[in-house]
Each structure stands twice: as structure tokens, then as C-alpha cells.
């Protein structure tokens, strides 16, 4: 029963911001990957860009294997940035209004040339140190949240399912530990 007050209360606690904006965003993320897959047969991943782009600057044999794919990966990454900017210029700026968008209480909103932008409050050292581990981990582990999480899980790949379970559990443990140590944000 959906009208059961206990169920509703539980849902409100688990999903304080509802699920619609997440689900719609997720469908769009999937759609973006599908557009590329249907046209090119490529299961897109975001993290290989880190290595393929290094092949422009480094002769290390590890990076040279990505020379053939590095150009489209730059385009893909540029597209992700552009798409997010498009979101900022429309929904985040209030040009397009939807009940699914809330400005939220995290981070800071600021405005440049009529476009509402957003800035994180998470401390730079966390971003930098975490970034280094993300850079090592996604490359050693053969994928990140888009490669393993979206395309790999979509492929029902057992490797990806194990990979996702691993990084999800470790990330939950890490985030809980960091929060318990009083680091915020």
C-alpha cells in the first residue's frame, strides 16, 4: 500500500530529495551512452580519457596504446562539460523551470554573465588526494562509474558487477570514516 504512512515516512527518510531527478538524470546519462553506442559500437567510459590524453604528452608505452582512441575521448569529455554547462545555463539559471530542480543547500551558487554557476564546499585537499586515488584506481581496476557502472552493468558483465560492488562498498566505508573523523565538508 502506497498510502501506508509508515512506507511514506520511510521513503521520505531514505529519499529526502525524492527519486525523480535522480532517475531522470540517470536515464539521460544512459541515453547519452546509448547514442554513442548505437552510432559507433563503442561502450563509452569516462576515465580512459585520463590516460589517452596523457599520450599526447608522454611516450610511456602504457599511454601509447590509447593513441587510436584519444581524439574521440577528448570530444566525449568536451561534450560532458558542454552538456553540464547547458544544464547550468538552462535549469540551474531558472531559464527552464522544473519541479525536479532544487537549488539545494550544498555548495554555493554564483552568477557569471546571467548564468548561475555552482561551487563546491568540499575542501581542495580532499578533492586532490581523492583525485589521485581515483586516477590510479580506475585505471588499475579497468573502469570507473561510467565504464563499469553504466556500460559494464548494462552488459551484465560479471567483472563490472564485482568491480562496482568493490568500489561502492569501499567508498561507503571511506566516506563514513571520514565523516566520523569530523571532516566536513
Amino acid at each position, binding site marked *: 500500500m502506497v498510502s501506508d504512512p509508515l512506507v511514506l515516512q520511510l521513503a521520505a527518510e531514505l529519499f529526502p530529495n525524492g527519486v525523480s531527478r535522480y532517475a531522470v538524470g540517470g536515464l539521460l546519462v544512459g541515453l547519452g551512452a546509448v*547514442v554513442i*553506442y548505437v552510432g*559507433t*559500437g563503442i561502450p563509452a567510459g569516462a576515465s580512459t580519457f585520463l590516460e589517452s590524453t*596523457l599520450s599526447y604528452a608522454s611516450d610511456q*608505452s*602504457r599511454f601509447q596504446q590509447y593513441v587510436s582512441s584519444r581524439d574521440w575521448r577528448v570530444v566525449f569529455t568536451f*561534450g560532458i562539460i558542454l552538456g553540464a554547462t547547458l544544464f547550468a545555463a538552462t535549469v540551474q539559471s531558472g531559464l527552464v523551470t522544473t519541479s525536479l530542480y532544487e537549488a539545494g543547500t550544498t555548495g554555493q551558487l554564483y552568477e557569471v554573465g546571467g548564468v548561475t554557476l555552482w561551487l563546491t564546499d568540499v575542501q581542495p585537499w580532499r578533492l586532490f588526494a581523492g583525485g589521485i586515488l581515483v586516477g590510479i584506481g580506475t585505471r588499475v581496476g579497468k573502469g*570507473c562509474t561510467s565504464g563499469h557502472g553504466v556500460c559494464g552493468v548494462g552488459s551484465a558483465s560479471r567483472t563490472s558487477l564485482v568491480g562496482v560492488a568493490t568500489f561502492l562498498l569501499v567508498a561507503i566505508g571511506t566516506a563514513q570514516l571520514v565523516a566520523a573523523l569530523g571532516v566536513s565538508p
Partner: protein
Amino acid sequence: MPLILIGGIIFGFGLGFSQMARPEVVLNFLQFDDFGLVFVMFGAAIVTGIAFAVMPRLRSAAPLTGDRYERRLKPFDRNVLVGGAIFGVGWGLSGICPGAAYASLGVGNVTILWALAGMFVGAYIQGYWRSYAANSSPTATRAD
């Protein structure tokens, strides 16, 4: 290439819309304050799952590249666990993963450049190390 750009734009717009481009939202999920984020990953995986299952039956090869439609399958080895665990610590510490980091830059979060710089440093460290390992042991099989 234009198609990849369009796909990337939809992908990035989705990351912005779901607010996964905000590290705080990811951290709130990992700290069990808001479970909504699971809908992003599973919503996306369901959409790709349908395409990965259906496309090989409709056509034998992709129109633009001539590549065969295949699922994303990678061989399993210990690296998946080791790398996954290292990535997990980084993700839990920073609240950001590569795709969301690019999108985060797009919504104006210039602070995320710290994370992007870190990711390149990390990717370079493992690339340097693995190139070295590959050169010093010619019998080693290609990693992935």
C-alpha cells in the same frame, strides 16, 4: 565525432540534472543521508542494458565505424579488486568520479580542477609504473 559530442552533451546534462556533478550529493549518498543516487546508476544501466541487448539483434555493425555491437566485457583478475578498492577510497574521500568531475567543471565548479589535476597525476603514476613493469618483464601479459 559530432555524434560523440551529442552523446557527451546528453551524458553531461544528465549528470548535471541528477546533481551527481556535486560532490556533496555523492557524499550524502555514501553517508546514507540520501539514497537517490542509486537511481542514477541503475537508471543509466537499464537504458544501456536495453541497447546492449537489442542492438546486436537489429544490426550486425555500427553504421559510423563498422564495428560490431558487443557488450562491454572485460576479463576478471585481481586488478579489478585492487583498483576498485583504491578507486573506492578516492571516491569516498572526494565524492567525485571522472565523468562527474568533467560535468562538475561544466556547472561552474572550478574547485574541481583540484580533483582533475589529482586524477591526471594518479593516472600518470600508474601508467609510469606499469610501463616500467611491462618493459622490465617482457613475458608479462598485456594488462587490459
